């Protein structure tokens, strides 16, 4: 009990250290403000968790976010600067990252060079590697959650679904990861999955960076299975031992696995090594999928156009415009 009291005191003192300037966005359980750390003048994002909304106290994801971000400090993982509570709300002070990968993918005016894609994937994998070596599953990797700092560094964010790797015998929920990036074992309702689900998501993001459009856009959970296997073949006991024991496995339509030539046509801009890495990361059998360490050691990253330096990666153009011509303030919609 005593410890909680002291915590509150500390929190109150840190509360005055930050200012909330402007509302940037609102989610189901939190409001995000643009703020400033008064002592250092550093720009931050402040995530105010709505309390009282839920009868049973704080939202789970807020707790998860605090729990795991506190533990991790890495160049490619968003930094949790501080946590404080004020007027009945929990506030997470996070690094301010104005851009995300989804915005870049959708911005038609930007052209991705092969080296840019390599750099983003490299940074994503480094972040994922750091999570995995600390036995933390991110469970919600998607371009929208890969934020880009002004210096071009890519950082994993939104640890609202993260959790540590289960203890043996413990069930994990299979209803995680945004649908398009969900690994096949999750689609089959597996409850004892591994880090491989994050690698799958990275593989799909890799493909999306190449195509500039979502790779496996399923309309609903059933359609997701169909889309996934149409693209990568339907798993069988031969290429994925024990798959038929998974809860939701019932032989759907059987699609043949794509030949290498088909994949090559699909990713016409990919080099042989890039294709190789995509194939390794999107293996249907989670046990065949490469781990983050293997992915980082892949020849693709050694191959010639080397990964672009983060500072030279493409950035959102709208920002420059709004700086140049002051008047149009409408650009900031949210």
């Amino acid at each position, binding site marked *: 009990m005593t410890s909680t009291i002291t915590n509150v005191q500390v929190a109150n003192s840190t509360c005055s250290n930050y200012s909330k300037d402007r509302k940037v966005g609102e989610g189901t359980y939190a409001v995000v403000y643009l703020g400033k750390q008064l002592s250092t003048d550093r720009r931050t994002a402040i995530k105010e968790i709505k309390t009282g909304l839920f009868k049973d106290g704080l939202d789970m994801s807020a707790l998860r976010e605090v729990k795991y971000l506190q533990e991790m400090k890495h*160049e490619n993982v968003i930094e949790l600067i501080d946590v404080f509570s004020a007027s009945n709300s929990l506030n997470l002070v996070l690094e301010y990252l104005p851009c995300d990968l989804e915005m870049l993918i959708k911005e038609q005016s930007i052209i991705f060079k092969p080296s840019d894609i390599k750099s983003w994937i490299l940074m994503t994998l480094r972040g994922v590697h750091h999570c995995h070596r600390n036995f933390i599953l991110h469970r919600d990797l998607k371009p929208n959650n890969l934020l880009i700092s002004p210096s071009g560094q890519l950082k994993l964010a939104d640890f609202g679904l993260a959790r540590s790797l289960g203890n043996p015998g413990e069930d994990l929920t299979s209803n995680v990861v945004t649908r398009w990036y969900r690994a096949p074992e999750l689609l089959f309702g597996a409850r004892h999955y*591994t880090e491989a689900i994050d690698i799958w998501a990275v593989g799909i993001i890799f493909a999306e960076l190449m195509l500039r459009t979502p790779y496996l856009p399923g309309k609903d959970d059933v359609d997701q299975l169909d889309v996934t296997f149409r*693209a990568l073949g339907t798993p069988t006991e031969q290429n994925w031992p*024990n798959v038929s*024991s*998974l809860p939701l496995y019932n032989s759907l339509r059987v699609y043949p696995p794509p030949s290498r030539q088909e994949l090559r046509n699909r990713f016409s801009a990919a080099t042989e090594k890039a294709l190789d890495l995509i194939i390794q990361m999107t293996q249907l059998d*989670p046990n065949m999928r490469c781990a983050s360490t293997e992915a980082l050691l892949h020849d693709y*990253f050694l191959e010639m156009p080397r*990964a672009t330096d983060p500072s030279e990666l493409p950035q959102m153009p709208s920002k420059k415009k709004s700086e140049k011509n002051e008047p149009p303030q409408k650009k900031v919609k949210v």
Partner: protein
Amino acid sequence: MLEGKVDKPLSNNTDGNHNTNMSLDGRVKDMCPICKTDKYLSPNMNFLINPECYHKICESCVDRIFSLGPAPCPYPGCGKILRQNKFKKQVFEDLGIEKEIDIRKRVSAIYNKTQEDFENLQDYNKYLENIEDIVFNLNNGINVEETQAALNKYEQEHKLEILEKNMRESQKNADLGKYREAMALLKQEKLSIQKQMEIEDQEYQAQQKQELLNKLSNSDNNNSEDIIAQANLNMIKRSSLRKRQLQQINSQLDQKYHLDSSGGKKKSSDKSKTPFTPFNGDRDLIKAYKFLPAVAENEPAVSDSKAETYYDPFVNKLALDKQYLGAGWRQQYIFKKALDEAFLGIGCFIEKEKS
């Protein structure tokens, strides 16, 4: 109709751009407006366009209408006279871009100077600006006739220059072609030399064997071992000699063809002097422990785990559950994690971390 869309194999439009939201709009786009043939029903059909008016017509229509000679465009209200040999495949989805590229190609065939033809950058930029003006005018229909006339006039006046420039450019391209040819030739030559050497080797070996047999049959028994040893020694000597020879020949060939191309290659390798570090120097290479599998003898060896497992009745039992295995779970991970976590703090100094 809707079902048909879902069933459409992915390979039909593998780039994935269209298959996600193929609406009615897409359907109209994939139909020939002249004969109303649908791309969906006859997937082999192709569209062609003519740079006169850029109207899309399917291949069979082009064959039908224009095979007897020039005819007016069948689009209502167009009526431009088109020729069959001018029809081509559409490269870009956006016809506006297609058109601009065509104009650019045409203009740059006439305005074909490069930077080396100018004394200073300013003049060259002026020249490029001029080209852009012409392209813009032609593309957007501003003073088309005047611009076209100016273009023609320029072409007339500079005919010789243009030709000369073309010659020079083609020479450059030919150089590249020659280089490629040389490389192919080099490869071939290497292969043939290698093959020849192999054949020679084989012959030599056979000959040696024969000689050895002859010697053995002619000599007395106690000498035979010596003779065999001698022969073996000779063989080894010879094979190492051959290897050296092969290397020498290879390097000679390389030198012969690479003399002029090596300069360019060095530059590109200089750029990336700093070695690439996949983990950005942040990787735990040395494990604090060694994994010594110790499965109890009486326990049946569990499924596919050959190594890296300990005796643990609870975990070992889980490893037999197909649901666990199907999801990618392996008991080795559990042991590894437990050990990793146990040793995680070692080598971490709080004082250092804090600062």
